[in-house]
């Protein structure tokens, strides 16, 4: 009790208003910057290098390539595999986003039947394991279509993209629905009072405000789907993980190469996904403050 009595006059003496009377003003967002290297990162990088290069020290003298030399020798092939993962993730994301926006709009639409249907589809694909959806796409879609005498080939990786775009679609649909629901209902009411039609309200007022709310979870989803593309190795697409195991076999299946080779694959994904994650975090922080 005594503290309160002594502290309050001290604050007033300075001529300030009581802190509770001040309007709430959040601290300004920090500008985006690339993540700085701190000691903890250095430890991580050195650790990864030691893990990869570990084989080099462990053997000594034997007339064979060290782990780093093996990775260097196969670097172009492994990188082409990694590029393939990126390509699959980008295309799956593009396809899934377009489909997901459509599904999400149906989910918040006025037609009750379509709304139910879109809701059911969203829930179904959102709650199915990604690998199961991938298997579905791989084995249900034929490897080529014949349309009007033309043969359209449907290679494995295209089927994999379709398989991955299904969960993206469902998650995107839910992100859109969530973003629209999160806007204060006053926005709808104000638009209605200004004689905007429902469609106009949605496309000119609501959705533009939703974009920045949707961006962080959308990027998060992209990160996840990128890491999920290695599952395509299970169904025989020649992406990075498939190539890694084939490289391991071509090097005679040496047990000491297992950790370095797979560690290298892990490092590639980390280097690609970590900046995306940091940027998402930054966007989240920034957009939170402006609402």
């Amino acid at each position: 009790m005594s503290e309160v009595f002594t502290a309050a006059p001290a604050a007033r003496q300075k001529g300030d208003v009581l802190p509770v009377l001040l309007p709430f003003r959040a601290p300004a967002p920090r500008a985006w910057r690339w993540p700085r290297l701190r000691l903890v990162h250095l430890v991580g990088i050195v650790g990864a290098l030691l893990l990869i290069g570990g084989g080099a020290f462990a053997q000594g003298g034997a007339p064979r390539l060290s782990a780093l030399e093996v990775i260097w020798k196969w670097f172009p092939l492994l990188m082409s595999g990694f590029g393939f993962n990126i390509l699959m993730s980008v295309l799956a994301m593009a396809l899934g986003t377009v489909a997901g926006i459509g599904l999400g709009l149906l989910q918040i639409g006025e037609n009750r039947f379509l709304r139910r249907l879109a809701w059911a589809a969203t829930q179904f694909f959102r709650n199915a394991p990604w690998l199961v959806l991938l298997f579905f796409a791989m084995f249900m879609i034929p490897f080529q279509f014949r349309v009007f005498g033309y043969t359209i080939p449907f290679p494995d990786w295209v089927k994999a993209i379709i398989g991955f775009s299904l969960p993206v679609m469902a998650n995107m649909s839910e992100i859109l629905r969530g973003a629209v629901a999160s806007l204060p209902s006053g926005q709808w009411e104000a638009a209605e009072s200004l004689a905007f039609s429902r469609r106009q309200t949605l496309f000119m007022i609501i959705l533009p405000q939703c974009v920045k709310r949707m961006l962080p979870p959308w990027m998060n989803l992209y990160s996840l789907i990128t890491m999920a593309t290695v599952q395509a190795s299970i169904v025989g697409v020649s992406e990075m993980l498939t190539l890694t195991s084939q490289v391991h076999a071509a090097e005679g299946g040496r047990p000491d190469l297992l950790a370095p080779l797979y560690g290298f694959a892990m490092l590639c994904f980390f280097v690609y996904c970590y900046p995306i994650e940091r940027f998402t975090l930054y966007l989240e922080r920034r957009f939170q403050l402006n609402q």
Partner: protein
Amino acid sequence: MKTLLIAASLAILAGALPTKADVLDAVKKKGVLVVGVKADYKPFGFRDPSGAIVGIEPDLAADVAKRLGVKLELVPVVSSNRIEFLQQGKIDLLIATMSDKPERRKVTLAIDPPYYSDSVNILMSKKAKVASWEDLKGKVLCGTSGAWYNKDVSAKYGVEVKAFDGSEKPLFALKGGECIGYLYDQTFIQGKLLDADWTADYAMPLPGVMEAPWILAVAPGEDGFAKFMTDTTLDWMKTGYIVSEEKKWGIEPTDYSKRMHDKLKGS
């Protein structure tokens, strides 16, 4: 718009039905032979640093394409999808270390005679003084659990087989001195012996036992192509092509390929 969409999807559905035609004609018309091979089975099919698939089986596939006068396209397959690819028509021919099993003969058209044969052998420590399979009595071997021959070998030669998961663990155990040798597929052991890491202290001194033939396969109903492949296989044996391929890729020719070559050499 809607009717157009429906029409398009109907057309796609109708077109998606598999069309039956003689593969041999189709291959010649396309000018490309598509062969499914392994890409993780050294030296039968594996990647080189440029990404190309090389090895004994890709060479065999190239020879088939040369005989047909068409280009070759290799598709990497794994055990779980190779038969499916063949049935779908995604590949025309399967040369992928496939052992001869009755259930595989039901779903594919197997080519006789088998082009190759694996057998069971032992990656033996050089310190072990073993000159024949009979010398193994009372010794301890490492093995892979689930391999069908573990029990047979153990019963026939009175050897104890310590089984481990997969192929890496028993190899570790062998290096650790838990057993005098590793009982496994001969082709796998030959692949290991291509690596300087193993040749220093280990060898394969015994002849293979319990032959397990490997078959080439084409899609069911492709009798014309099967006939062509049978002739090709016989010709490979006659000319000793398979034996020379084995030598080219650094493995000891198997009894089976030598025997078939000797048998057909004069014909």
